[in-house]
């Protein structure tokens, strides 16, 4: 039995990705892990004083909530999913999670809006980098 690692957030685009990952897990009989990465780099864009530790804690709680939603989505489709939260830069944490979890497949979601941080071109480069550095197959769905 293989292991699918699905990086997720929330919103319509993520629901599509989650559904695709759930369908794949059911089809292949693989176990499924939803991953949320707490990335507070956006705080660099403000000149105001903030506590990254407190913000990261709040975002981790929000991530847990989003992961619970993803887990319920999988359960509703007959798949038991585990959830993981990591803190740091998204790409680095994705690669680390893929290695540590022993994933066979990493699923990334196609951007839902043109302004998304994960633009299509960037996303393809990200997928290549994960594959090259971890040896884990990476798909954009």
């Amino acid at each position, binding site marked *: 039995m293989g292991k699918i690692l699905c990086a997720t957030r929330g919103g319509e685009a993520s629901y599509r990705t989650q559904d695709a990952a759930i369908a794949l897990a059911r089809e292949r009989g693989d176990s499924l892990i939803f991953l949320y990465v707490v990335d507070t780099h956006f705080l660099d*864009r403000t000149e105001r004083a903030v506590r990254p530790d407190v913000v990261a804690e709040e*975002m981790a*709680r*929000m991530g847990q909530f989003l992961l619970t939603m993803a887990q319920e989505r999988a359960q509703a489709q007959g798949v038991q999913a585990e959830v993981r939260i990591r803190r740091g830069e998204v790409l680095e944490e994705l690669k680390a999670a893929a290695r540590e979890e022993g994933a066979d497949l990493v699923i990334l979601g196609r951007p839902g809006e043109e302004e998304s941080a994960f633009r299509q071109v960037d996303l393809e480069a990200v997928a290549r980098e994960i594959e090259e550095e971890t040896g884990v197959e990476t798909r954009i769905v």
Partner: protein
Amino acid sequence: MRKNSRSIGCLFLLTVSAILLVGALPQPTWAAEGAALAGRVVDFQQQPVRRARIALYLNGEEEPYVEGESQRDGTFVLDLPDEPVDAVRLEISHPHFRTATWKATWADLERLNDGSAVRLPDIVLERQLTVGFWIATLTFLAVLLFIATERLHSTMAALLGTAVILGISLVGRPINEQLFIIDFEQAIEYVDFNVVFLVMGMMIVIGVIEETGIFQWMAYQAYRLSQGRVWLLVASLMLLTSVASALLDNVTTMLLVAPITLQIALTLGIDPLALLMPEVLASNVGGISTLIGTPTNILIGSYADITFNDFLVNLTPGVLLAQVALTVYVLLVYRKQYRAASAAASPALLAQLEENARITQPDKLRKAGSVFLGIIVLFILGEQFHLVPAVTAILGAVAMLLVVRADIEQMLRVVDWTTLMFFIALFIVVGAVQEVGLISYIAAGIRLLVGDNLIAATLVVVWAGAILSGVIANIPFTAAMLPVVGFLTRSLPGASNKVLFYSLSIGAAMGGNSSLIGASANIVTAGIAERAGYPITYRTFLKIGLPAMAITVTVGTAWLFIHF
């Protein structure tokens, strides 16, 4: 060791408080004895010119008998010798002005030879455009551009501007006097340490409060008490963020409230942006109601000597009116999303929401809450004891650290030195353009435009502030506008009630609602929303934010006209 660190830290903060307090007390003035010349050097706007070189020539000699410098208020006093003199001439020079000369009349000479002091009429210096003027102006524009386009971190942009200005001034002056902009001592004089220490003190206070979980708990209570009535939930969340932004600051408020709001929205099955956007708009508006609510108010309050109570009396009612109008607006704009709300969340999600919204440190909250209440009381009553806001903030920070027994090292790490450096460097850059005369020219231009019409001036300040704040960062904009508004306040009939400073406050802060980059709170809210999979695009923000800005600024302007 840790105890020692805490004591040393508190001692440091207390020392700073004492220094600031002593600095705030009136200083004794020196009075000349015997024959002396006293006067004041001003520019064409009657603004004091400091550090003008005053050379006193006696009896037609080529070498000056004595030299002096004009003080901060433009005044100078030069002693004359006890012996009688036949002729007295003053030469007043400054790198950014044409040199002026004053000669004593017979009547003046008679008084001076009697051993009396002569008070000169104000000496008005005429500005001159030097190479330094253009360098300082271009540097200032480059700093604004770097910040607006995010090509450089705002602190880096301001530091770079400072380095260019000081570097060219100090290295260039010996080569060509035209390259001089500002010297180091002058630059430091432009740094408003009242602002720096007020911001620092409040950072520590907020740093303690924000980890207690109070905001998340209050947001959850708003959700619970609204019992599915989304309009009530929206109004409650807007009120919460507005009040929290007024008492703390809007960036912190949004960083703490946005994640839990997002979860509430998902629990109700509505688009999170339909709750986040009203919150961030309310946050930007609410911050204006107090001195400590926004950095722009801190800048304005310190420059114009507007107290905490002045803001409460003169702006808070206007802000409340603007909030009501804003609430009605968002309820109309998002009415479809609100109608679509359902309570279909699973028990697991509801439990998760409740868990995420609990107060994490109740004991700390009790202590920090009491201290914070004391700080607010001190802000209100402090002006009776000539307590400047910076001292109140530092005293509050010390009290917070002592009562909550926070780790001083951790708390000093909470102080964002990058932000403080940004303020210091920004003051120097703005000081440089003020020194070379750019600000004077802008002020004169606006004065020419509005004539003696205070209503026109109010409209120009409010709306120029509102529109420009959507394009350029409002902190440097406000810092640069302060001397302009100061000049208008002094020169326009009826403006002495400081209405134009309140206009600047409304324009600069409410204007931040017009675009995604208009306020830091917008950017951090978009950051959180994006990390949850609900990106707030520039277009989305503009579509909702621009009309909101127009409505709130209109209400704010109407309030100014009614109140003043």
